[in-house]
């Protein structure tokens, strides 16, 4: 299983398990939070600077969070010159999220990042719901980037496609080294009094708890049709959410919305994940990767053993409330 975790990311002493979702953290403003991750993923860098979308940029709903940040960033020139050297000093493996509006824009940024030793991996943001979509398909963009970089290349996909498995296979064939699943889904919230859109751009990207089953389905579906390592994300707030994504086939888990309310979430979720995995008889969380697909070979805890080891007589233990109290 350790082999699975290492694939595509070069040799590592400890498999990086917990990352942040791109766009959810500014490591230069909150370095301690970034250092508490196994790898830090930057906000998406675009070829040109972007101020971002007009306020209001955020709206909490009962089931999740809508954002309309709009890929605010300094652009690749200022990123390389002013931000990357400082990010490199953080001492945490660095993934750069690359965005663009056409395949050649993505590729140009990847080419400029190729020679930078601070950068461990590149993630192509192929699915931001808050900007106009890039021209060209995900696979065309991956192919263009593959030609100019030897760094591990992750494709960040949205679950809002007709056949996500097809897209996953296509980006794999185009040379992607991994998948990041999932980006936010487009959503709308209206003010309860005026019935006007709460976000400045009306529509925004939905994240948080509402994404959990969507992310699980995406990871599960892609794990069945590709062998690419998967970074699973979408509403992870507790160790059991992370464990579920691993079981669905992710080898890493990324945190987003939860970081806003709890900047100490990485350490908490890492501890909860180990606890939840142990509760089910797994020696390590990594051993649970793919468990939902029914392949039991090589696991210390078979399905039967997991059933037996789950504490039946403590009805509270394992519920959300019990985990919340422990944290």
């Amino acid at each position, binding site marked *: 299983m350790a082999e699975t975790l290492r694939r595509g990311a070069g040799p590592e002493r400890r498999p990086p398990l917990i990352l942040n979702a791109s766009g*959810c953290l500014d490591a230069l403003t909150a370095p301690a939070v970034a250092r508490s991750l196994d790898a830090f993923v930057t906000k998406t860098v675009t070829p040109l600077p972007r101020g971002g979308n007009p306020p209001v940029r955020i*709206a909490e709903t009962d089931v999740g969070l809508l954002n309309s940040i709009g890929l605010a960033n300094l652009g690749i020139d200022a990123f390389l010159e002013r931000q990357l050297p400082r990010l490199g000093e953080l001492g945490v493996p660095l993934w750069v999220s690359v965005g663009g509006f056409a395949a050649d824009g993505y590729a140009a940024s990847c080419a400029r990042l190729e020679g930078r030793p601070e950068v461990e991996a590149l993630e192509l943001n192929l699915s931001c719901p808050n900007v106009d979509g890039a021209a060209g398909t995900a696979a065309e963009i991956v192919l263009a980037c593959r030609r100019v970089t030897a760094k591990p290349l992750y494709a960040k996909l949205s679950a809002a496609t007709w056949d996500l498995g097809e897209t996953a296979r296509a980006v794999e064939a185009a040379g992607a080294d991994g998948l990041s699943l999932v980006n936010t889904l487009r959503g709308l919230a209206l003010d309860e009094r005026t019935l006007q859109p709460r976000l400045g751009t009306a529509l925004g990207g939905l994240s948080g708890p509402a994404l959990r089953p969507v992310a699980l389905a995406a990871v599960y579906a892609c794990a069945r049709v590709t062998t690419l390592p998967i970074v699973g994300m979408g509403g992870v707030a507790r160790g059991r959410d992370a464990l579920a994504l691993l079981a669905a086939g992710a080898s890493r888990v990324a945190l987003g919305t939860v970081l806003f309310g709890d900047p100490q979430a990485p350490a908490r979720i890492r501890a909860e994940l180990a606890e939840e995995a142990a509760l089910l008889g797994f020696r390590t969380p990594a051993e649970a990767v793919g468990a939902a697909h029914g392949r039991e070979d090589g696991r210390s805890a078979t399905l039967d053993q997991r059933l037996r080891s789950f504490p039946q007589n403590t009805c509270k233990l394992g519920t959300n409330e019990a985990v919340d109290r422990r944290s």
Partner: protein
Amino acid sequence: MLRRAALSVLGVEPVGPYTLLRLRRGAIRPGVPGQLFMLEAPGRLLPRPMSLCLAPPGELGFLIDPIGPGTRALACLEPGDELGVLGPLGHGFRLDVERPLLVGGGIGIAPLPYLSERLGHPPALVGFRSEWHAEAAALVPRAEVVVEPTLVTERLPEEPWDVLACGPEPMLRALRRLAPSAQLAWEAPMACGYGACYSCAVELDGEWQRLCVEGPVLSGGLR
């Protein structure tokens, strides 16, 4: 360094339509007036940004306007409840001013009581939409109170005061015109409070400012 701790509720008191939430101070420092704190809102996804209203020994007091699900959840807390508090965050008011005049509008008076204490109780000018809302003026020492339709900007003295203000955005924009060097505490919907999400960014004079990092207090619009 971010500091987050679970603080216990000491009291929940009505102040006109507002609610004064009194917390045991615990490991959280009161910081500089105008800095913000992210208060865990029970049952909600995001914490809510609040400036500190009162800082008596061992306590932190927050004035809450219960207008939405998060602020209502905060106002419904009971003594003995615990909630996570992150802060203090961002930049508060500079206190090296010669002739301070505190100006507040509505729930924007929240940081003024603590600010008044730290500045030795300078004069204040506060405005509200109704007499009921104006009951909160009792929290601000030496406050001249106006109620709509009268606006605080109509009562701003001509002499060169150092204006320190918090209130609705139209009031702050009007104050910028009348007192260009005023220190103004701005507000925007905010998810994280520590510079991660970029949701509280506002464009002032062509520059994007994250209110939780560069603000919430900006001098003359720009720090």
